[in-house]
């Protein structure tokens, strides 16, 4: 009896005799890469079926296959899979970064042509098709004012809304707000532009504009704030939910009222994340063309007053210059695009620095 029981006992898995394993030498991967590149170039150019892009694609596939084969032969299956997946992940990273690098390069190389004082100091007023001068001063003013006003409207509204939903909201009402904020996230920007056109420009603004509908930078700011609001609410909401409940309880246990707990403990803890969300919303709003075109109307002259008359914006300026029949306008469009990206970048960096200044240095 005992003998049968023992013989039926499952065999333990074979223990490795040594902890060391055979490894591919360090030069193996680069050598495979070079061989793959040469072979790929030979095949592609030899057969005359493509250019450098196809060479790189074929070389990458050859490299993956060669690496797997070599690793499989020397190191075994697990190591071969590990190497292949690592290579795939790295390729995915390169593929993701390539467009970004390409965009930055194109912007800088083409945008630097008109990067001069005239571009930043003048508007397009009285600039004809044969005039090499002319700049985006009016558009920069418009973007700053419109995005600034939109931010002033959106941030208090959005943050307070998120605080309500996270800290106070119970039941159906809070659920409904969350649902509609989600729906708003998907509204196309042209629709918000049309909404403000129909509601503000055509119906409300005639009341204090002698009965005539008034295009203005403020109307554009309204459209942009409709766009920004869901982003700000959602990101603030997520950040507030990340603040651990024990922090709130710790403050309550000191006899701190709820509103003060939110203001002095919860918000400061979530601040860096909230600022990031706001900056994402600002970046999105600054790049919008359609709503500005619909309700601010564009315009070539400098207009500092966002409440009266047409205003342009950088994104709209890019759109208009790109379509203009003048050999000088593409350069203006590129420089305006570069300016827009630089502006958003500067704002983002500044906001992050400000948010960090409140935190303690370690």
């Amino acid at each position: 009896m005992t003998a049968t029981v023992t013989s039926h006992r499952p065999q333990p898995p074979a223990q490795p005799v040594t902890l060391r394993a055979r490894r591919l030498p360090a030069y193996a991967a680069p050598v495979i890469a070079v061989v793959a590149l040469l072979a790929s170039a030979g095949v592609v150019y030899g057969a005359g079926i493509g250019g450098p892009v196809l060479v790189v694609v074929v070389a990458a596939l050859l490299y993956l296959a060669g690496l797997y084969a070599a690793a499989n032969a020397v190191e075994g299956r697990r190591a071969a899979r590990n190497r292949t997946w690592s290579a795939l992940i790295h390729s995915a990273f390169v593929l993701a970064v390539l467009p970004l690098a390409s965009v930055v390069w194109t912007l800088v190389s083409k945008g630097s042509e008109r990067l001069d004082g005239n571009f930043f100091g003048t508007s397009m007023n009285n600039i004809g098709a044969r005039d090499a001068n002319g700049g985006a001063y009016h558009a920069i003013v418009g973007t700053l004012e419109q995005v600034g006003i939109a931010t002033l409207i959106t941030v208090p509204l959005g943050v307070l809304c998120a605080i309500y939903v996270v800290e106070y909201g119970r039941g159906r009402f809070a659920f409904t707000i969350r649902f509609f904020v989600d729906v708003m996230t998907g509204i196309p920007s042209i629709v918000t532009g049309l909404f403000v056109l129909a509601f503000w420009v055509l119906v409300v603004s005639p009341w204090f504009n002698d009965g005539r509908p008034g295009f203005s930078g403020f109307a554009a700011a309204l459209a942009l704030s409709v766009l920004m609001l869901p982003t700000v609410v959602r990101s603030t909401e997520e950040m507030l939910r990340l603040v651990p409940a024990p922090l709130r309880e710790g403050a309550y246990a000191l006899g701190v009222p709820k509103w003060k707990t939110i203001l002095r403990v919860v918000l400061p803890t979530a601040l860096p994340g909230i600022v990031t969300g706001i900056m994402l919303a600002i970046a999105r709003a600054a790049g919008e063309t359609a709503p500005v075109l619909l309700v601010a109307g564009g315009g070539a002259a400098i207009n500092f007053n966002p409440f009266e008359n047409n205003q342009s914006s950088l994104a709209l300026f890019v759109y208009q210059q790109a379509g203009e029949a003048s050999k000088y306008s593409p350069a203006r469009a590129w420089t305006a695009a570069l300016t827009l990206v630089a502006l958003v970048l500067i704002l983002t960096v500044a906001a992050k620095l400000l948010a960090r200044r409140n935190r303690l240095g370690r």
Partner: protein
Amino acid sequence: MAKRIEATDVTAYYGGFKAIENISLTVEPKTVTALIGPSGCGKSTFLRSINRMHEVLPGARVEGSLTIDNQDIYDRDVDVTAVRRMIGMVFQRPNPFPTMSIFENVVAGLRLNGVRRKSILEEAAEKALRSANLWDEVKDRLGKPGAGLSGGQQQRLCIARTIAVEPQVVLMDEPCSALDPISTLAIEDLMFQLKDKFTIIIVTHNMQQAARVSDRTAFFSIEKTGDPGRLIEYDNTQKIFSNPSQKKTEDYITGRFG
């Protein structure tokens, strides 16, 4: 300073779930009372209902009567923040405010309740940190973040924060469960000193700790999972650990159950 707490038929719910039922006990001023019992028996729930922290959770509510020096804690006209200022609480895991320095953490309770004068705050911070046996370790780095301290120091920081608002009662919810033995000892020593000024109620899973630090011990238990927790026995700590009158208590403290 320290005050007497009387609980009469306290029953607490989480939504439809009854967590504790008909708990009645009296805590004398300037004593340490330990609440012991198996997990889920409602010790923490009872502790949290004493300073009205239970109701912070959605759907949670308390029935019965809880008084502090004959004032009803659950009276309709009572200001919750006043209750919590009178009855401080230290939590299981140290929870210093991450955006505040050590100094700001200690005086958070005072500052957020409107105390502005720097001299008052500094005096209170030093006093509280000295009482929490933390002053010597942090006096040179009061401006550094509270989250940069070790776990035991963070917990003493939280105790300092709690006693800086000069409460009359201090509730401690397993304050040592996340700490090493040396930090635990430091906090137990602290409890001995604090007992001169405060009434202390501590929830603990560590029976040696209950035996070491407390004057009175309350044993809570549940029949089975899903039943409400009940108070089985409440007596002098020495009596509970040497000659308990209930069979269940004896089984629990000798390790035969729970």
